[in-house]
């Protein structure tokens, strides 16, 4: 068995023991699921907009290289400077060089999952640049020196009491309160000062429009608008799959995104940015940089089936509906993207050696596929990655790294037994006689029986019973 440097099984067992955490997640996920269902109560509308959303994403993928070139050309024409990064190291270096040129000391960040993927905060802080998260959830997680546990609601694993204690402990002017309005107001006061004085604003991108060279951001708090409007320099980071062809492709995707993510018909702000401050304009950044990140995505794109991973609009609905995620929470995945999408994306981005365990964090129940607003066949991809992990090949980095002789032998034996009626009869008859006597501590059996009771074998096989009733073997 290949070494897995990240242990989901262990982390999830620990998470399952944490009753506080389970309660926090259960409450939040139940609320999200029922509210989302209300948003999509009109089945015909859901089917229509979902098909449209999926077609928009597929059309974008079908022309991905051309659309990225068009995006670059239109952004450049609008005055947005475009940079390309093959790896997260390269993306970090690009961001750093911009910051050094403008002598940046303080950066405010809007929520960006790609910047989590880049570990940008840690990277900049090591180089003496203060990097402040301004989305309230991200701010909480940053104060707690933790990782986001959900891609939409980063601090979903904490309850009000825990956040109240954290604020009291970490923010100088804080008085202890469990009043959410007061806690929010405190964050408002602290961060306002930072927005006003920050040298650079960093944001993600929900969608980039090739046709017009426009960056679209959705948010509720106004921190995204602050980060992209107040500081003199704005740096936007995006995964290369985030492009759409036309401006009219934006409304259906936003509608699917906000309803799936937080059950809102729309977020408070839809922020569409097409250029830095122009001659005569009184505010807005003087420079905008767009960093387009690959980080393994072009490899994913090369495979016809795995490519579907890149349709994702990062709504997080698959997490909210996943029987595994909702029990163990986001931290057990130890990845910027947890839940079903994380379980298929992380192994492809970081390789199966490191992340080969994640496609197994799945019961194959298909709940995620049913609610995915852009119809990603998540479970099929999960199965494909399980298979890639044990078969050497070049579609995914680390393919074959989890190959095990014992497992291969079991499967071989299983398929031989099922291919031969004689072997099958023999095997089932043997199990009917001896199955109940086999100790639960047998090496392979133990994997199953240490968390489940061993099934009882009937002492006559189904075939034998059928024969008795006069039904012949075929």
């Amino acid at each position, binding site marked *: 068995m290949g070494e897995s440097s990240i242990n989901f099984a262990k982390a999830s067992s620990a998470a399952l023991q944490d009753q506080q955490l389970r309660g926090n997640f259960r409450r939040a996920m139940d609320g999200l699921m029922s509210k989302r269902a209300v948003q999509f109560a009109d089945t015909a509308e859901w089917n229509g907009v979902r098909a449209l959303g999926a077609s*928009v994403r597929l059309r974008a*993928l079908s022309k991905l290289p051309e659309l990225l070139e068009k995006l670059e050309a239109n952004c450049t024409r609008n005055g947005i400077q475009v940079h390309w990064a093959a790896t997260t190291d390269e993306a970090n270096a690009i961001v750093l060089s911009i910051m050094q040129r403008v002598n940046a000391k303080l950066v405010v960040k809007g929520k960006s999952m790609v910047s989590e993927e880049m570990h940008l905060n840690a990277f900049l802080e090591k180089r003496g640049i203060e990097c402040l998260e301004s989305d*309230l959830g991200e701010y909480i997680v940053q104060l707690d020196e933790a990782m986001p546990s959900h891609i939409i609601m*980063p601090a979903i694993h904490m309850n009000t009491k825990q*956040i109240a204690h954290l604020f009291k402990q970490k923010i100088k002017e804080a008085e202890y309160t469990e009043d959410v309005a007061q806690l929010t107001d405190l964050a408002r006061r602290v961060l306002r000062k930072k927005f006003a004085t920050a040298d650079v604003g960093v944001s993600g991108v929900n969608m980039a429009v090739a046709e017009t060279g426009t960056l679209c951001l959705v948010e509720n708090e106004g921190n995204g608008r602050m980060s992209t409007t107040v500081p003199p320099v704005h740096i936007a980071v995006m995964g290369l799959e985030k492009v759409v062809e036309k401006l009219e492709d934006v*409304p259906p995707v936003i509608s699917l995104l906000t309803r799936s993510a937080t059950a809102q*018909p729309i977020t*408070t702000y839809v922020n569409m940015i097409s250029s830095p401050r122009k001659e005569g304009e009184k*505010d807005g950044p003087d420079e905008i940089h767009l960093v387009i990140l690959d980080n393994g995505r072009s490899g994913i794109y090369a495979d016809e089936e795995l490519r579907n991973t890149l349709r994702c609009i990062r709504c997080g609905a698959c997490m909210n509906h996943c029987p595994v995620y909702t029990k163990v929470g986001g931290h057990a995945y130890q990845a910027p993207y947890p839940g079903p999408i994380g379980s298929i994306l992380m192994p492809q981005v970081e390789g199966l050696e490191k992340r080969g365990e994640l496609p197994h964090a799945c019961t194959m129940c298909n709940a995620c596929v049913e609610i995915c607003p852009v119809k990603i066949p998540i479970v099929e991809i999960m199965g494909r990655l399980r298979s890639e992990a044990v078969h050497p090949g070049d579609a995914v980095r680390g393919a074959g790294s989890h190959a095990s002789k014992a497992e291969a032998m079991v499967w071989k034996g299983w398929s031989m037994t099922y291919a031969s009626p004689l072997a099958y009869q023999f095997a089932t008859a043997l199990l009917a006689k001896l199955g109940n006597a086999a100790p639960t501590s047998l090496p392979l059996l133990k994997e199953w029986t240490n968390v489940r009771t061993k099934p009882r074998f009937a002492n006559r096989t189904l075939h034998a019973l059928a024969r008795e009733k006069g039904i012949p073997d075929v």
Partner: protein
Amino acid sequence: MSESRNAILGKLRAGRDAHPLTPPESDFAVLRNKRWDGAERLERIKRMMEAVHTEFLETTEADWPADVQAFLTAQGTRNLLFGPATEVGARLSSAWTDGGPELIPYADRVETFKERLFDGIDAGITTTLGAIADTGSLIVWPTPEEPRLMSLVPHMHLALLRADALYDTFWQAMTENRWADGMPTNALLISGPSKTADIEQTLAYGVHGPKRLVVVIVR
């Protein structure tokens, strides 16, 4: 870093050409068919926006400056940021009477009054390009005369909405007005005051942007 650019694009091209992808047609009928009658549109906009704590002030073309002043005075608002070079700004300053909240013009680059903007301004007033019935959203395109931060930094945002500038969907607004032919520096949809649910899913208003959004409906 054009080396990476070419490598990335080359890889994408090779990947796609080896396995081309035929996407299904994009059928926008689901958006095209979303329609509401004239009166229904405004009702729906109000209902949806009120559900997220937006306030409404009904007024007329003749009376709106006086009504805005009366409203702000009643709220105890100390001052109002406005764009002096717009038609609306001219109306406002000529109709404003003594004793009301102080009118503060956004006349210079933000750098000249950033501190005051972030610390001393209670309200800001902007125009809108209309509103959207489907989602209950205002369409706001900031301009040099009506800059971006006016609708973001002051604690209260007043937005003038002409009662006849209503659309069914975001898609209808952008396609009918051919936005794709020329996008402004910044185009916004605003659907309520700033809010968050990041603390245990409890909704709180006024996190980083305005705490209050007041839509002034002008008939």
